C-alpha cells in the first residue's frame, strides 16, 4: 500500500498530493493566502512577498515559490507575518494613488481589497504618489503607470500565454516601469488589444476602455434609434455578478434590462454567427472544390479581431488564408444598419461583447460606409454590468424577455460561437452530409469541445478527410502556425485569442481559467434548448439571402483587410 505524505499547516496535517508549491497546499487547507503576483496559469515570479509563511525554525519563505515536503511544519498567520504583510501593503501604497472613489477599479481592486483585509488604517511612509501617467492611445486598453505595482502579471500574461510580448519591464530600480518597446504608445506597438493583461492586473494600472458615458447620451436622445446585439458569451458571464451561478444563462434578463435602459431594438449576435457559418462553410467548400493544388489551405477563421490583428502584425503573409468573412458582430451590424437605413431617426448600433479587441474592430476603416461605422459602440460585459448598476435596475428581479424579431432568430450553432471549438462545430454541422440527430452528436464527439488550448480532429467530408485544428490563446496560435510553417498540414484552423474562447474574453468579469468551463457548459446547454441546431435551418436565412442580401453578399458580409496597418 502506498503511504500517504503529510505536512503540517497551522497545526493541522494536510496530505501532499503532488502540489507544486506551498501556496496550493495552503489554499487546499482552506486558507486564502494573499497574493498579487501569483496566477496558476502563469510562471511563478515571487515578487510581491504577500504569501510569506514561517517555518518551525522561524525562517520566512514565499509560499508560491517553495515546495512542500513531508513532515514540513509551517504557520501562515503569525504576528510577524501579519506585520510584514501590512508593511508590504504600506510600502505599495506609499507611492500609489489613494483616490479609490474615482478609480475605474473601485470595488474590484486587489490592492484595495488587501489593504482592507489587513486593516491598513494609516501609511507611515511619505506619500510619493505621482499624477496619472496615462497611455490612452489604444481603443481597447488604457494604461496608467502611476497605479502600477510592478507585479509583472501583465508582462507574463502577454509573453507566456499570449506570446505577443507587447509589454515588458523597462528601466531600473525606482525608475522601473512596464513599457512597450521604445516607450511607444500602445496603439503603435505590437499589442493586439486582447486585454488579457487588464484581466489579470490587480490594480487600476491597466483597464478596459469604457464608452458608456457617450452611450447614455444616445439612449437619452429621442431622435436616435438605438439598436443593439448581444454576443453569445455575455449571457453566461453576466449573471454571476448579480448572484446567479457562474455560467448560468441570463439572456432573458439581459434583454429585459436593455429594454428598460432604453434600447429600441434588441438582437442576438448568434444570428450574425449563423450567417458567418453559412458564409465560412461556403468558402471552405469552394476552396475544397476549386483548389486542387491545396495552396489555399489552411483556411483560418476570422471571427476573433485580436487574432486578425495578430496575424496582420506578425504573419502578414498568411492573411490570404484568413477567411474573408466578417465577424458575426460585423455581419449582423451590416444587416441591421441596412434594414433600418430608411428610418426617419438616426440609427446607431451597439454591440455588447465579451471582448476588448472588438472596440478596435468597430473602428476599422474597412467597416465604414461613408465615414460611418457599422457598429457605433462596443460595450463590454463589465460595461453593461456597470450600466445596469448605475440605472438602479434590480437585475435579479427582472422578468426574462425575448429578443426582437427578425434578428433574434438563431440556431444552436450560432450560440456556441462563444466558446473555443464552437465555430468549428457549427461549420461541421453545416457541411456534414449526415443531418440526423446521431450525426449531430458525432460531431460534438470529434474532439472540438473542451477548454484545451489546442484540439485536433479529422473529419470526413465527402471523400476527403479534413484536418482541423481548434486553437485558443494566442501563444498556442503562434505554436500551431510554427508547426504549419514547418510542414504540418491542416485544412481548417479556428483561432481565438483568449484561452478558452470568447467566454474568457477580457471584457468579461474575470475568473481564473479553472472556472471558465462553467461558461462553456452554459453555452452548450443553451444550444440544446434551441429548436434549430444547424445554421442553414435558421428561418431567417432564406428571406435574408433572397431579400436584403441579394446581390450584396460580398459587400455586406465579407471584408478585405487592407494589410498590416497599425491602429490609428
Amino acid at each position, binding site marked *: 500500500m502506498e503511504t500517504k505524505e503529510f505536512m503540517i499547516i497551522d497545526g493541522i496535517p494536510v496530505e501532499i498530493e503532488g502540489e507544486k508549491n506551498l501556496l496550493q497546499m495552503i489554499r487546499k487547507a482552506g486558507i486564502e493566502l494573499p497574493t498579487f503576483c501569483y496566477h496558476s496559469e502563469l510562471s511563478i515570479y515571487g515578487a510581491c512577498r504577500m504569501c510569506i509563511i514561517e517555518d518551525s525554525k522561524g525562517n520566512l519563505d514565499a509560499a508560491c515559490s517553495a515546495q512542500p515536503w513531508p513532515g514540513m511544519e509551517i504557520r501562515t498567520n503569525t504576528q510577524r507575518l501579519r506585520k510584514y504583510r501590512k508593511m508590504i501593503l504600506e510600502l505599495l501604497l506609499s507611492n500609489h494613488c489613494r483616490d479609490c472613489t474615482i478609480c475605474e477599479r473601485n470595488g474590484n481592486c486587489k490592492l484595495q481589497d488587501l489593504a482592507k483585509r489587513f486593516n491598513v488604517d494609516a501609511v507611515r511612509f511619505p506619500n510619493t504618489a505621482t499624477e496619472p501617467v496615462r497611455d490612452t492611445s489604444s481603443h481597447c486598453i488604457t494604461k496608467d503607470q502611476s497605479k502600477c505595482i510592478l507585479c509583472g502579471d501583465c508582462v507574463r500574461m502577454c509573453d507566456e500565454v499570449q506570446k505577443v510580448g507587447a509589454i515588458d519591464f523597462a528601466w531600473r530600480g525606482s525608475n522601473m516601469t512596464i513599457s512597450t*518597446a521604445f516607450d511607444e504608445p500602445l496603439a503603435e506597438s505590437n499589442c493586439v488589444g486582447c486585454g488579457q493583461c487588464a484581466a489579470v492586473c490587480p490594480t487600476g494600472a491597466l483597464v478596459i476602455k469604457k464608452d458608456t458615458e457617450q452611450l447614455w447620451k444616445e439612449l437619452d436622445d429621442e431622435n436616435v434609434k438605438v439598436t443593439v446585439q448581444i454576443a453569445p458569451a455575455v449571457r453566461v458571464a453576466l449573471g454571476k455578478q448579480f448572484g446567479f451561478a457562474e455560467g448560468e444563462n441570463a439572456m432573458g434578463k439581459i434583454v429585459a434590462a436593455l429594454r428598460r435602459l432604453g434600447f429600441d431594438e434588441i438582437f442576438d449576435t448568434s444570428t450574425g454567427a449563423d450567417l458567418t457559418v453559412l458564409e465560412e462553410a461556403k468558402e471552405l467548400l469552394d476552396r475544397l472544390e476549386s483548389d486542387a493544388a491545396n495552396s489555399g489551405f489552411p483556411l483560418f477563421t476570422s471571427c476573433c479581431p485580436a487574432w486578425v490583428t495578430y496575424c496582420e502584425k506578425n504573419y502578414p503573409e498568411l492573411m490570404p488564408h484568413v477567411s474573408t468573412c466578417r465577424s458575426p458582430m460585423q455581419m449582423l451590424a451590416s444587416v441591421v444598419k441596412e434594414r433600418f437605413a430608411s428610418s426617419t431617426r438616426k440609427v446607431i448600433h451597439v454591440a455588447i461583447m465579451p471582448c476588448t479587441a472588438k472596440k478596435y474592430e468597430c473602428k476599422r476603416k474597412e467597416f465604414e460606409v461613408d465615414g460611418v461605422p457599422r457598429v457605433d459602440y462596443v460595450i463590454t460585459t463589465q460595461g453593461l454590468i456597470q450600466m445596469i448598476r448605475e440605472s438602479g435596475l434590480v437585475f435579479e428581479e427582472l422578468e426574462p424577455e425575448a429578443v426582437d424579431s427578425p434578428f433574434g432568430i438563431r440556431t444552436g450553432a450560432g450560440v456556441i460561437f462563444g466558446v473555443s471549438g464552437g465555430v468549428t462545430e457549427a461549420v461541421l454541422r453545416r457541411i456534414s452530409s449526415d443531418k440526423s440527430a446521431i450525426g449531430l452528436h458525432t460531431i460534438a464527439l470529434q474532439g472540438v469541445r473542451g477548454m484545451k488550448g489546442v484540439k485536433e480532429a479529422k473529419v470526413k467530408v465527402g471523400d476527403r478527410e479534413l484536418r482541423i485544428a481548434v486553437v485558443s490563446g494566442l501563444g498556442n496560435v503562434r505554436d500551431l502556425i510554427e508547426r504549419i510553417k514547418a510542414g504540418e498540414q491542416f485544412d481548417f484552423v479556428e483561432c481565438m485569442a483568449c484561452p478558452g474562447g470568447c467566454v474568457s474574453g477580457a471584457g468579461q468579469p474575470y475568473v481564473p481559467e479553472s472556472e471558465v468551463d462553467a461558461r462553456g457548459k452554459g453555452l452548450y446547454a443553451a444550444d440544446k434548448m434551441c429548436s434549430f441546431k444547424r445554421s442553414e435551418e435558421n428561418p431567417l436565412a432564406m428571406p435574408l439571402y433572397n431579400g436584403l442580401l441579394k446581390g450584396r453578399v460580398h459587400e455586406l458580409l465579407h471584408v478585405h483587410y487592407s494589410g498590416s496597418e497599425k491602429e490609428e
Partner: protein
Amino acid sequence: MQKNTQEFKTNFETVCAILEKHEFNPHMLVPILQEVQAAYSYLPEDVMNYVANALKITPGTVFGVATFYSHFALESKGKYIIRVCNGTACHVRKAVEIIKVFQTELGLDDKKHTSDDNLFTLEEVACIGACGLAPVITINDDVYGAMTKEKTIELINKYKEEAVNA
C-alpha cells in the same frame, strides 16, 4: 527616426556581422548590445528592432535590457562626453552645482543629455576614483579636478573653440 534609418542602412553589415559572430544566440544579448554600441556609439531603435527579430525575441525584451544597464545609451552622443562625478566625496563638495552649470550653459536638463549642436553629452557618474580632486569631471579622456563654476564655464568655451578650429 529618419536619421536612424539612414545610419542603419549604411551600417547594416556591422550589426549582421555582430549577430553572426554570436550565432544568433539570444542568451548573448548583452554582449551583442555592447558590440552594437561600440560600433554605432549608441543603440539606435532600428538596430535594436533588427536584433530582436534576428534573435527571435520581442523588441520589448531588448528595450528592457538596454534600459536596465546604464552603460547602454539610447541616444546618439556628442563629440565631447562630459562625466561629472557625483560619488560621495564629489557630492559633498557640491558636484550638483557643477552639473547645474553644465545644464544651464549647454541647454540641457535631467532628460536631455546632449546639446543641440551635438557637441556635448553630459553624464552623471558614481565614483571615478579620484576623490582627492573632488569635485572632479572628465571630458573624453581628460581629467579636471577641483572644479568651480568659473572653471566649468572656461572649460566649455575651450572645447567650443577647439571644435571650431578642428
